[in-house]
């Protein structure tokens, strides 16, 4: 790649040959003031992977503490307070700094405009602003450690958070408030982009399913996050000035706080899973070389998941002291979410039927997703059922459930998607053999870590426990060993991905034979995405001979 003059006015929109969004205007200033969705996507990717690593290392540490009930191994001296801070930080970082911003901020920012054949997102400056707001929120979150590290759990339940706990609660809640705005602005940007920036000829039902999933996510981000924001402000004010809304000491109602919190945080779990499902809807047809089965069913199920997710939040409060009527109503509504989830799963399976399945590493992650999401989702049914939830709530069963859905499903999809679009984003192919090994290790390690937690949980091991009864020791030990396998596989992934960057660009435009528009530009794409405005002439996922264009592998 010899240096090419880039200051010269470009003819039309065609950049000089060999130039793409990565090597055009590469000064630091160009990067930090960029409004290019692809660069912002990359910056988000670095940020969220960084926090994934931090959150993950905290998790490894807390697993180590739990290895034995006496916490004596390797001379670790984490006391009960330290442990409480560990899991709080782990949960809060993973949720607010990693999983909620990760897929929308990084992968979606990068591919959504490409998939729509657009030059950018609707509001590029706003996009950059959301990234910086994310950075500010992240800095605030990290600095809360300085103010005495919050120990409330990621749910910030009152009155513990509003009266007993450390002062850093206010800092952490304000940080989540700020992060909430970043999330809102990202969502708002995507809604406008999807409505208005589709390529000529692309109707709503010609959009890739990834876009449908992200559109549904964005709707939740817009409609749910503001309530979280105001809730956290109220909590911070309650803690400092004693309003009397959430803390019984001042005449408030702690259960009301839980309503406020879960009104956001249940939909938020769909902010986490819908992007994951969106990625899977891309991976499966591409690697099955077969059109997606039930396009409309999948699209509608994304939207209905988004809407239904707003009316089930009370299932987190079955034993929390909400009225019996509300409990029953929320349990009934909770079952509704199983239906669109099932529709998706069955349609994906049918897509694979009679396909021509390439077991490339992204597809391995997609297969892992199907299995892990089945487990995670079905254990959600145990929790939604009234009589069993009474026994299972607040035990490790819940911990295992949500790791299966958040980590086993969403993070799996995220890593799969990262591999899938890595050639597009960086222009490099990674080492496929290592990738396959890492995927298998991930699957094994994950199940080793979290399957035992289902058993512990049903046997009555409560969550957020520093000490535990000896009878749970074998399960905890197994779980801890499992977490090392996960850690190993992830560091391995990081290593070979980074290693691929040292090579010159070698990725073809369409390494997987994908059918969506992002594969129709160069790898990596040029600054304005496409040489010519793409026009959609065929439905997405059309793999009939002569349609998909390229032969693969």
């Amino acid at each position, binding site marked *: 790649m010899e240096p090419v003059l880039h200051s010269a006015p470009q003819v039309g929109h065609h950049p000089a040959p060999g130039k793409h969004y990565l090597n055009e205007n590469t000064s630091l200033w160009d990067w930090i003031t960029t409004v290019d969705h692809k660069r912002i996507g990359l910056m988000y990717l670095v940020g969220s992977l960084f926090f994934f690593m931090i959150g993950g290392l905290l998790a490894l540490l807390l697993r180590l503490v739990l290895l034995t009930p006496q916490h004596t191994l390797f001379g670790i001296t984490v006391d009960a307070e330290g442990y409480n801070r560990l899991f709080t930080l782990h949960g809060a970082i993973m949720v607010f700094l990693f999983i909620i911003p990760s897929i929308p901020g990084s992968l979606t920012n990068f591919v959504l405009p490409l998939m729509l054949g657009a030059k950018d997102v609707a509001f590029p400056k706003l996009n950059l602003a959301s990234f910086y707001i994310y950075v500010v929120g992240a800095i605030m979150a990290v600095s809360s450690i300085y103010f005495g590290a919050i120990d409330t759990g990621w749910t910030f339940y009152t009155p513990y958070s509003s009266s007993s706990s450390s002062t850093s609660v206010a800092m952490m809640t304000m940080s989540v408030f700020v992060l909430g705005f970043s999330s809102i602005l990202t969502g708002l940007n995507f809604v406008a982009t999807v409505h208005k920036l589709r390529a000529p000829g692309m109707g709503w039902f010609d959009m890739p399913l990834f876009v449908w999933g992200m559109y549904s996510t964005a709707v939740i981000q817009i409609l749910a996050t503001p309530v979280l924001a105001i809730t956290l402000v109220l909590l911070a004010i309650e803690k400092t000035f004693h309003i009397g809304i959430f803390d019984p000491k*001042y005449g408030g109602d702690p259960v009301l706080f839980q309503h406020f919190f879960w009104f956001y945080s249940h939909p938020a779990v769909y902010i986490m899973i819908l992007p994951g499902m969106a990625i899977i809807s891309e991976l499966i047809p591409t690697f099955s070389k077969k059109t997606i089965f039930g396009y409309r069913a999948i699209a509608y199920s994304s939207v209905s998941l988004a809407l239904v997710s707003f009316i089930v939040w009370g299932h987190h409060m079955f034993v929390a002291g909400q009225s*019996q*009527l509300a409990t029953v109503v929320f349990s009934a509504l909770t079952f509704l979410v199983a239906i669109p989830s099932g529709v998706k799963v069955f349609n994906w399976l049918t897509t694979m039927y009679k396909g021509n399945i390439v077991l490339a590493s992204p597809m391995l992650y997609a297969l892992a997703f199907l299995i892990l999401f089945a487990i995670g989702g079905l254990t959600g049914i145990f929790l939604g059922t009234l009589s069993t939830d009474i026994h299972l709530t607040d035990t490790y069963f819940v911990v295992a459930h949500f790791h299966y859905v958040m980590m086993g499903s969403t993070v799996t999809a995220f890593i799969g998607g990262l591999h899938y679009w890595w050639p597009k984003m960086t222009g490099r192919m990674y080492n496929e053999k290592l990738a396959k090994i890492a995927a298998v290790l991930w699957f094994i390690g994950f199940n080793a870590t979290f399957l035992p937690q289902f058993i512990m949980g049903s046997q009555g091991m409560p969550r957020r426990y520093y000490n535990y009864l000896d009878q749970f020791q074998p399960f905890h030990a197994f779980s801890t060993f499992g977490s090392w396998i996960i850690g190993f596989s992830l560091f391995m992934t990081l290593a070979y991905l980074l290693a691929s960057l040292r090579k010159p660009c070698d990725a073809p435009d369409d390494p997987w034979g994908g059918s969506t528009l992002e594969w129709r530009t160069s790898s990596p794409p040029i600054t304005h995405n496409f040489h010519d405005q793409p026009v959609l002439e065929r439905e997405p996922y059309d793999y009939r001979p002569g349609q998909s264009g390229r032969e693969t592998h």
Partner: protein
Amino acid sequence: MSAHTEHSHAHGGPAVYTANLIGLLILTGITVGASRIDFGPANTVIALSIATVKAVLVGLFFMHLKWDKSVNAIIALAGFLFLGIFLMFDLIDLNNRRDPLPRNTPVLAAPTAVPESMNPLTTPAPKPWVAPAKPVGEAEGEHEGH
């Protein structure tokens, strides 16, 4: 997305806006008037209904929803709809709570229970607003000043 020709001047116009303003002012008058009459609990309902009519007028005419692309109206309605859901389910909970009451004297009130004041971990600083009362007459006099 069908072709849509002009958005510049097909709708609205000063006359409509002025009429809308007058309508809003009249409704404000009605709200104030209605609040002076005692309808019992219906007062709140009346006040909020009038407010909603006013909000709809603002939305339709000042904010152009009447003439705008329907997607904007849908977004606006979604905001209110989900707020309604939020409120509705909270009320389902709050209005139906029936806590069991202990048959015995509550432990908390029993003489041998830990006096709250002895437990600095859980006792707040003395509640600031429970200051020594002023002579009752004075406080009331002030209260009537409104």
